[in-house]
């Protein structure tokens, strides 16, 4: 994602949930939606952390006005 953002590590946008944040990011970084969303869901292999927790509701995860979100690789375990 750093390549898409030109090396910017943090971006502040508005959104009531993860989907709205991605939509807001799309206006800044075209094609981001296509990378993060597949078949109207968060893409396979991608997890999202909201305020320090890897959350389960994907695009529908509600956000606070000061929420911090990170898109990360989904991690497996044995």
């Amino acid at each position, binding site marked *: 994602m750093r390549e898409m953002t030109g090396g910017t590590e943090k971006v502040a946008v508005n959104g009531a949930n993860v989907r709205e944040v991605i939509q807001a990011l799309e206006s800044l970084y075209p094609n981001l939606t296509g990378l993060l969303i597949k078949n109207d869901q968060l893409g396979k*292999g991608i997890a999202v*952390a909201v305020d320090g*927790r890897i959350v389960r509701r994907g695009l529908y995860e509600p956000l606070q006005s000061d929420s911090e979100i990170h898109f*990360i*690789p989904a*991690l*497996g*375990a*044995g």
Partner: protein
Amino acid sequence: MNDYVIPEKLRVVGTTPIRPDGHDKVTGRAKFGDDFHLPGMLHGKVLRSPHAHARIKSIDTSHAAAFPGVHAVVTAADFPKIASNVIDAGESGQIDMQDVADNCIAREKVFYDGHAVAAVAADNAHIAEEAANLIQVAYELLDPVMDVRSAMADNAPVLHDNFLPGAFLAPTEKALPNASKLELAMGDVSTGFDQADVIIEREFTTETVHQGYIETHIVTAQWGANGMVTIWTTTQGQFAIRDQLALVLELPMSAITVIPLEIGGGFGGKDSIYIDPLAVVLSKQSGRPVKMVMNRAETLRATGPSSGTYIKARLGVKTDGTLVAAEFHGAYEAGAYSGGPVAPGVSTALTRYNIPNVKIEGYDVLVNKPKVKPYRAPGATPSNFAVETMIDELCRELKLDPVEFRLRNALTTGDRLVLGFPCPEIGGVEILKAVQNHAHYQSDIGGPHRGRGLAYGFWFGAGLPSSADLMVNSDGTVQLCSGSPDMSGTRITLAMQAAEALGIEPSDIFPSVGDTASVGYSFQTVASRTTFATGIAVYQAAQDILAQMAERAALIWQIATDNVLIDCGRFLNKANIQQCFTFKELAGKLDGTGGPIAARALASPEGVGFQITAHLVDLAVDTETGKVDILRYTAFQDAGKAVHPDFVEGQIQGGTVQGIGWALNEEYFYDEAGHLKNTSLLDYRMPTILDVPNIEAVILETPNPGHPYGVRGVGEVPIVPPAAAIANALYDAAGIRMNTLPMTPAKILDKLNSATH
């Protein structure tokens, strides 16, 4: 999500009651996969590829089908040809079900020695095996590629012509023939290395290893007259088996019932289907139930081991011991189909240290070996081996104490992870201080060619969905049914959490593991998650039970439910505390107040407590033979809250022993043509009781606020540091720096000889 308020005092959690399944297991009454039989049952056997990489030209099953006693013969032609369909397999990452189907029975190509090509069902296993050997397969041999660096070379043989290199977020350009790439970064490594006073760069290799579960894969399938399929199997996840079978066989999930039997070890390797769809289709064709049992050679050749790796890492440090920059490049075998443990492997490589500038590259590499599967903290042991031995080298170069060095750089609560978000509550500093204050660390090692090594390890763990049912009996006992197979004593750890919540004794709770038709969906018993995540489902169901019980007390006393006080298994009228029922007394009144009470909870917890550990080992090395004897081993681990400390200790000891095997002995030996040469446990050398001393487990408890009792997972992280700790002890003992696993006597002797010449 809010954190739980963890009670200061717990009545049941933290004690060590006898597990309810223990007696049956030690007396042989418990039903494992091979203990299951059905009337009229046939036995299935698989014909496997003798080649590591070949195109299937033709298959002639006529001789096998005509063999007396044979009832069915199947090849890939008897299975639906399914489309590509990538699913989230949680612990296995993302898997394409088309690959899973192809892995169960090869369609156009075989991709590894042992790949299933056909299967036979017959009156007994001997007939089935003889008939399978009558199947004639014509192959066009192709060059195999057996290690990650060869597979990533420009002229490497390509396994899958249509391979689309996947990567985090997006398919990458096809820069490498068999590999996908993952990148993570934080800060600016160039600036970081500029600030460093000492920089070291090292390369490492590790070999393919197997989980080594003693019970192999065993399944019995029955295709019912109504088209309903029933499976009895040994598995880490009955729902995963059901769902994968449904997708591969194009059946409704509801048409398949998977009944989990006891499991004789899994460690991540029993999360997927292999012989299961073969047994189902053989049963359909023969009209009889079919049992299939993998022998040891089949298990080693054709089930998912853990990745061999190539790692190159670079660390930069200031003279005061502050880590300022790190680069980590890890190439992990995926096996024959993409999707190995590269993400968790590289993500945990440095996570336990607070390093401001980090760049990580991971490669998921196709090779002609079985598709890899998770193995206890998948991917973390090789990456930890690399980084922790480099840390040891830096400590020696800077003449810094290895604990002090790690304390200086330890990740603490709130520090940024390389994944970007802040670290939740973590007790790393407490672990390292416990090492420092322990008698083992302060003792003299004594004797020549003896050495001591330390390694520090980290693992994420996971939450994921779990369900639990509770039902109150009229005598006050409680039935507990979960969808989580019991691999490590989780029947009792779940019962203890129910008992704690309900205010009754664990002996009053009967825990069981349900089949897919009788309990709510649960993800596999993987990722150190059952006591944590299923425990939360149990806790939530218990809160529901208590609320329902309070309503009944209120009904009896003719008061508002809000006026019922629940206090440790008692229900009291707040306005008249002389009015009181014990849990048992109130249970006896359920029939007359509306009938029985039951509750179900489905939880998908997010408050996962990370796992952190440090291992300290003393060893002696025989400089004439290269043999290593482990003299003393202490493992320090944060359990959050140890629900049953004996079982936490068992997990720590078990994982450590597996890590010792990975460190010193275990590896797949392939010849140049890609044939696996060590297909028995005589030749695939796992540690025995003679190889390991008592492993002292030191359990620390930094509560996880994401669980009502503070629980963290404990099962995976113990396998992470043993290889590095042993390598560091070897340097201390003999002055040799090992950069390859396993560290066999031959390799150690070579290093010793090189050091003296």
